[in-house]
């Protein structure tokens, strides 16, 4: 594809796989990082062999920071045809009864309000260029809730709703918006949880609950993102593609 994509949250486990996958299809990949500068620079070097690329530091709590990422991507690469929102707060798995207002505030600021900032900055740009696509990562937890996952699941559900709102309101400008909802994935937070939380027996029991009898790979989530970013999904908007091996069923 000729145009450029911009991935918010490109340095995490899922974000990195998404950037790699999109680099094989798009001419330019801009991605953001918050704290993992080294990982971002390594990824930038790797991607530069396959497409034009830029790693930019971004703070999703700051309008100006988000806006400047998109402006930079547009100026350097001539347009932003697709925006991917793959950022996630680094959270644990407390029960709702244990979550303090400040913890909610933190994840909602970075994820949900962060995504509203990205959308608000991207829409005028996409309207002006005659269209574009937005793909955000949600969670299978919206469809089958695992206890302890509220801090992650609640803002993710809102992110999906925002995608549907954008699909509805901006379709007339050729802008599509969809979500990908990963199940348990061997990357990013999913991998971290597998190492740090619960016993191996618990994870083994969980794996047997997945109809495909395995956890997913970051590359499999990235394929779904690539599909929704591309012309192959030209008539798909306002949808969520659940990539969970059937776990929620």
């Amino acid at each position, binding site marked *: 594809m000729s145009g450029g994509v911009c991935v918010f949250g490109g340095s995490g486990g899922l974000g990195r796989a998404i950037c790699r996958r999109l680099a094989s299809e798009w001419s330019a990949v801009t991605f953001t990082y918050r704290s993992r500068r080294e990982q971002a620079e390594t990824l930038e070097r790797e991607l530069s062999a396959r497409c034009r690329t830029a790693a930019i530091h971004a703070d999703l709590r700051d309008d100006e920071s988000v806006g400047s990422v998109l402006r930079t991507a547009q100026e350097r690469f001539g347009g932003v045809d697709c925006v991917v929102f793959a950022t996630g707060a680094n959270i644990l798995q407390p029960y709702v009864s244990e979550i303090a207002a400040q913890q909610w505030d933190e994840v909602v600021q970075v994820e949900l309000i962060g995504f509203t900032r990205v959308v608000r900055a991207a829409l005028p740009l996409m309207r002006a260029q005659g269209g574009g696509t937005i793909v955000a990562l949600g969670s299978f937890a919206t469809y089958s809730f695992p206890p302890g996952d509220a801090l992650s699941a609640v803002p993710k559900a809102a992110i999906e709703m925002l995608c549907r709102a954008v699909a509805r309101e901006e379709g007339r400008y050729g802008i599509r918006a969809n979500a990908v909802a990963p199940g348990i994935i061997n990357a990013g937070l999913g991998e971290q949880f597998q190492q740090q939380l619960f016993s191996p027996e618990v994870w083994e029991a969980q794996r047997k609950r997945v109809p*495909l009898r395995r956890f997913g790979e970051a590359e*499999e989530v990235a394929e*779904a993102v690539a599909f929704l970013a591309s012309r192959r*999904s030209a*008539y*798909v908007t*306002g949808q969520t*593609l659940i990539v969970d091996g059937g776990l*929620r*069923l």
Partner: protein
Amino acid sequence: MSVIVTGAASGIGRATALRLARDAASRGGKPAKILLADIAKDKLEEVASLLRAEGAHAEVCVSDLTDPSAPAGVVEAAHRAFGGLDGLVSNAGIIGRASLLDLTLTDYERSFAINTRATWLLARAAHPLLAASKGSIVATASISAHEPTPPLGAYSASKAALIMLVRQMAVEWGPDGIRCNTVSPGSTHTAMTDARYSDPVQRAAAAQRSPLRTVGLPDNQAAAIAFLLSPDAAYITGADLLVDGGLSTMLMPASGFGDPWRR
């Protein structure tokens, strides 16, 4: 990749067969092997010729899926021709226009026989082949499976049953490595809907009702089916993908909120 496509003589099935043939050719690997099944023999042969021109290995199987023994025959034909099977696209469907008060028992049974039962029988017959290849199944459902659609009483119900049938397969056959998904088309211009969408006035009105302001094309559906069928979707099972241009987000505008008809 060897695949069965039912309802392949026209519309979404035809577009899917072409898409699979072209995807295989553009990836430069082995040519696609596609068994085309439909009741319409002449049109089936036309599609087969088009596929061969794309470099694919195409076989045809004339089959009436209202006959409960037909699905196993389709799978057997593919087994004979290709020696195995990687994918099943269960796409054949009938629309059966009648309100629930006017619907005859025969038409009701026919809708469920083709729109629902045939997918179970095809998939059951294909199960050993798909378990051997770790293959996948995609069935064509409908937006009508999600939203009641007068006067398509039996159609909507049979497509809703189809989605649950496929989710059931996903759970039962996931451990065998078989993925099972559905695509739900919204308004799509095919032979089935030609009377409606070849009329410019009706077409414009339909387009105006969806956020993307267009009526879908068979290839829009084919692209989604091809994605779910392929290893690109290796961790997706039991999913239904609505390919409707956002039509399903339009309930509140249709009920009078906002100003959906501007522009």
